[in-house]
């Protein structure tokens, strides 16, 4: 079985991916969506933490990606980046959403604020989830501001919204995305199993066509 199918099935089983068409979720950015993804629920399962790290490591070796440092986004990217960095025995840092309002805290943790340790290092950014892409952009820019190269962002789950795809491609240089599971892969798995009923599948198909206007259309 392909690993993305295995991850999709298990994610649906443990509720890491939830669908609630009649009582949609409020996303952090304010959008009202019928789907919710919480990869933190995988943390309970050490074999999946390990599987994610092995899959990420496989992408690195298959594509021969240069990698000096692993970076996780705070909070939910930290666990997955740690397991990967441990597996590869690489340096680890984590990136906060922004440095404003944190006083003493740096946006990048794990190096001194004045340190030049990241200069010319190839940093792979680990996200648990890519939705609108906003936190990824913020983290990539923070790494690049410290003179690190950040040309790859790996995630466990990616909605592959046009807005995030466009953001990653518009960066100069672009940042390439690799995800263990995409929304479309997940949907295929769910459709061919008994996870959603017919009505839910229809609704998700409808949502997928215009996700950011879906809630208005249905008066949520």
């Amino acid at each position, binding site marked *: 079985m392909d690993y993305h199918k295995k991850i999709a099935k298990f994610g649906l089983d443990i509720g890491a991916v939830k669908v609630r068409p009649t009582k949609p979720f409020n996303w952090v950015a304010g959008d009202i969506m019928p789907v919710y993804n919480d990869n933190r629920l995988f943390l309970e399962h*050490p074999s999946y933490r390990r599987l994610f790290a092995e899959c990420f490591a496989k992408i690195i070796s298959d594509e021969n990606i240069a990698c000096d440092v692993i970076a996780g986004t705070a909070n939910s990217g930290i666990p997955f980046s740690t397991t990967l960095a441990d597996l590869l025995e690489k340096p*680890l840092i984590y990136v906060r959403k922004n440095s404003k309002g944190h006083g003493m805290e740096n946006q990048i943790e794990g190096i001194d604020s004045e340190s030049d340790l990241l200069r010319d290092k190839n940093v792979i950014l680990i996200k648990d989830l890519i939705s609108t892409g906003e936190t990824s952009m913020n983290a990539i820019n923070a790494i690049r501001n410290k003179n690190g190269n950040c040309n790859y962002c790996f995630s466990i789950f990616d909605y592959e919204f046009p807005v995030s795809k466009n953001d990653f491609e518009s960066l100069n240089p672009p940042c390439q995305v690799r995800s263990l599971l995409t929304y479309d892969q997940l949907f295929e798995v769910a459709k061919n199993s008994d996870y959603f009923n017919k009505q839910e599948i229809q609704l998700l198909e409808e949502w997928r066509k215009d996700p950011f206007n879906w809630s208005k259309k249905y008066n949520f």
Partner: protein
Amino acid sequence: MDYQKKIAKFGLEIGAIKLRPSDPFKWASGYFMPIYNDNRMFLWYSEYRRLFAEGFAKIVKDENIDCDIIAGTSTAGVSPCVTLSDLLMKPLVYVRNKPNTHGMEKQMEGMNVKPSGKKVLLIEDLISTGGSSIAAVNAVRAEGADCNYCFSIFNYGLEKAESAFQNLEPLCQTRSLLTYKILLDAAKEENYFNKKEFELLEEWESDPFGWGKKHFPQKYNN
């Protein structure tokens, strides 16, 4: 060399632990203290991440501590907690200082069902005055789980923190890879300071909150 001194020496070398007896740090609480610690600086060194996890695992094994779930305090305790829970193949959660305001986020993240009756081992990077550690212990207990052990990479050994842990009902025991005493021994072996400075550092231990005022009164007047 035992692993504790190894951690102390490396921490001093990379600046994760800073000792400045003659030019103290101002802590967030306003007190001037001769020590500063940022264990996140160890993250760069995978060998040390591993060493911390092995150190924690050894305590679990030596003391035969029951442990179903490993919890890390957000954010600095999360990474050390991950490496440990990977080593022990245990479920992992992380605990926020306070619950998040939006959506489905909880103070304790990583579990779908309440961990009622489960034995949770809490991992902190640093125990200072104990405030955030105690809040994390209480957050775990509020979920119905037992939290009777809190491990840290470093513990300053402040009386305030010790008594806060002791006063919990039931009490929560602390274990630390590194203590202030081990740190001073390591600094001595490496001749980091002169005699006068070591005396200042030793004195801090007996009266940490009065130390700054006594030796650097002018700093408190500014």
